[in-house]
């Protein structure tokens, strides 16, 4: 009975949020003096209008899903990792450098360079965890600050020691990945690559780990009450280190596959401008750190991005409008609309 109610409100809420988001968007479009219908149609077309556009949406969702899963995993263990951006960038730059300097090309190169990226990103996140464990350095602040440091450091790597000197290029970037080592596309001519399959597999794997393994149980309990977890014999330090490591590795993987499957090199700013990490963080929070939910919301958020591209191409609506619609949608999805009424009644009753 209450379960049914839960399901219905689960559906009503996003629908309502989307409705409000679109309504606010409509006002903005009218202000800009464009056709509302046309704009929204272009938005839909740009995200899902054809196999090609769908593939773009899915491609864009890959780093968002992976970064989101990273955030979600640490969050499950009770640790707020705001450092996904730095970890993503460190993963990407490491992969981009390693792949070029490995003496062989091909699948093994791909695996090793992605692995190296994940490792470095994992260590970065681990480092923040270690500082919190050993010196009580607030994780929120340290991960936030490490973002800036990581982004600048990656920029340094590709503008000085590992710069691509073969191209006359402007923005700092690394050398192009060899064809043989690239992460292949899922369909020829489409942008979506095997990173998507990887992201889905990891989503399912993570859902399984969290729900069905003893380690997942330890993570959940630590996240819910660390004192209870310690009382029950769970080693907080160990679980924290492992979950921060995994969290960072996933964020790093987001950057690595974006390099090996999409850009084929590390370009300064190419992974931070699209705000993959922050979008992933939102996906994780909106989904309550549930892996499958995180992936679904990540795809939705990616669709908003690619849809905006369609609007930009085919209408005179300023690009900023899609930012507005996007933000408003997120705002309203995060609100507990339909729940608010039930909740406010209950809250008064509860202690």
């Amino acid at each position: 009975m209450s379960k049914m109610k839960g399901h219905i409100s689960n559906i009503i809420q996003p629908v309502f949020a989307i409705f409000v988001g679109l309504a606010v968007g409509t006002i903005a479009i009218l202000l800009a003096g464009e056709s509302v219908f046309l704009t929204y149609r272009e938005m839909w077309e740009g995200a899902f209008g054809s196999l090609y556009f769908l593939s773009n949406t899915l491609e864009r969702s890959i780093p968002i899903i992976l970064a989101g899963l990273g955030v979600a995993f640490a969050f499950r263990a009770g640790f707020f990792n705001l450092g996904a951006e730095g970890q993503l960038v460190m993963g990407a730059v490491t992969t981009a450098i390693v792949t070029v300097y490995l003496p062989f090309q091909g699948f093994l190169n791909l695996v090793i360079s992605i692995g190296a990226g994940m490792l470095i990103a994992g260590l970065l996140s681990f480092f923040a965890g270690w500082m919190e464990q050993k010196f009580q350095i607030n994780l929120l602040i340290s991960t936030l600050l490490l973002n800036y440091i990581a982004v600048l450091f990656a920029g340094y790597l590709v503008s000085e020691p590992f710069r691509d000197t073969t191209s006359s290029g402007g923005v700092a970037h690394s050398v192009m990945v060899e064809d043989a080592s690239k992460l292949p596309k899922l369909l020829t001519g489409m942008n979506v690559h095997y990173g998507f399959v990887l992201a889905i597999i990891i989503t399912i794997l993570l859902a399984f780990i969290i729900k069905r393994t003893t380690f997942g149980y330890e993570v959940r309990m630590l996240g819910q009450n660390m004192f209870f977890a310690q009382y029950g014999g769970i080693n907080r330090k160990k679980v924290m280190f492992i979950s921060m490591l995994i969290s960072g590795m996933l964020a790093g993987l987001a950057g690595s596959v974006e390099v090996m499957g999409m850009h084929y090199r590390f370009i300064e700013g190419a992974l931070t401008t699209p705000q993959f990490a922050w979008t992933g963080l939102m996906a994780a929070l909106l989904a309550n750190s549930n892996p499958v939910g995180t992936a679904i919301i990540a795809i939705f958020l990616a669709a908003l991005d690619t849809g905006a591209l369609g609007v930009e191409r085919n209408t005179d609506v300023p690009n900023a409008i899609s930012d507005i619609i996007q933000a408003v949608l997120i705002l309203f999805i995060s609100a507990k609309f339909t729940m608010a009424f039930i909740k406010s009644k209950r809250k008064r009753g509860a202690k």
Partner: protein
Amino acid sequence: MLELRGITKKYGEFTANDQIDFSLVKQEIHAIVGENGAGKTTLMRMLYGMEEPTSGDIFVHDKKRKIQSPNDAIGLGIGMVHQHFMLFPSFTIAENVVFHHEPRKKWRYDRKKANQEVEQLAKKFGMEINPNQKISDAPVGVQQRVEILKVLYQGAEIIILDEPTAVLTPLEVKDLLNSLRELVKMGKSIILITHKLNEVMEVADRITVLRDGKVSGSLKKEATDTEELSRLMVGRELQKKQLPKVTSGKAVLDVNQVYVNDSKNKAAVENISVQVHQGEIVGVAGVSGNGQSELIQAITGLVKTSAGKIRINDHDVTNHSVRQIRDRGLSHIPEDRYLWGAAKSASILDNLIMTDYRKSPLAQRGILNKGKIHSYVNNSIKRFDVKASSINTSAQYLSGGNLQKLIAAREIQKDTPLLLAAEPTRGVDIGAMEFIHEQIIEKRNNGDAVLLISSELSEILALSDRVLVMFEGKIVGEFDRENVSEEKLSLLMAGGTYE
């Protein structure tokens, strides 16, 4: 002074209070008793404006009133001391007492005056406090006094106390009950909610018993006794328990000259040695805050000892990890069920499997076995009579008593050679208490060792084969079951000596 007529409160389909009639006359102590979940707190929350009745009327000074917020209640001279403390740990005692009624100079907070007023108020009601002390540094008993002072400061004429003694030591309880009598003498009227019938018999003038949301009896103290009250509460006769003689075997737990430092690096436990043998319950009595917590945590591996040895079944477990110690055969009912004993937002299922989730048959090679876990959990709740709508609801929706039964179930049914039971029945109604006590005794009768740590003397006396008294981190006395008495214990617990 106060009258409730036909008060009914429904949460959805569930009726928490059903047609309750209740009255309070001036200068009386009216006790409300009832099992966990009987609806006592709900009734009081309505009086205090934190809930609105579904139907029924409230009369204050013979006028019908609608109480919609705590502010309304305070305005009508109703004050409430909540079951869970409503204090600000980083504020001083005075700041807590005067909160929301602060003396001020224009917009400024006149802390000096607050301190003076609180000091005077405390003196007037014979309570001893230091207004400048931080709540986080104050013992529980003092915190309780602060709660009462708060209500008095607001000028309440009607004072509601929801289970005020649940966490108090016997001496503190005595103090509190004295204060209550004083208050009545000074013209206040009191509603006292408690599970402890001896307290009721000591101070109450009238008693109302709730069962399943209904009034099952309203009596004058002179006209009743604890047996009748228990029957009205539980709906059946309670049995007297006895401890059958069991020959105790070898020492299962051996704590040898252990020292533990507290979080401020001061010695909290000094040179303590305890042995618990098979088939024996050793009770450690003491006013809470005298090193019991540290001792428990040292034995269970939650803190490190600074000196000494701890052995379980002849294995040295000193400063081993919690997991290693548990694997040696320790189970542990923690002193604070919400902090240590459970994860409130986790499901009943997750809370129940905490200590066994890694072991076959609940898990194989790191993978949880869903089917086995379900049957395990269902069996446990059935056996320990945990009342819950589903094993997937989160633990926060269990009443305190039910949660405590859940924790006891988790720890007792494990069949370990050693049980460390800390405050196993704190704040739990007599039905649940009786049940948990039975389980502990049964464990002892099976030849296991039990270390019972409790600030509840009646519990210590009822269960222990041997009693130790802790005071200021040391053991100050030891008695056999035969020659222990409440008086002797009280004296030692308070730091007195006994020849």
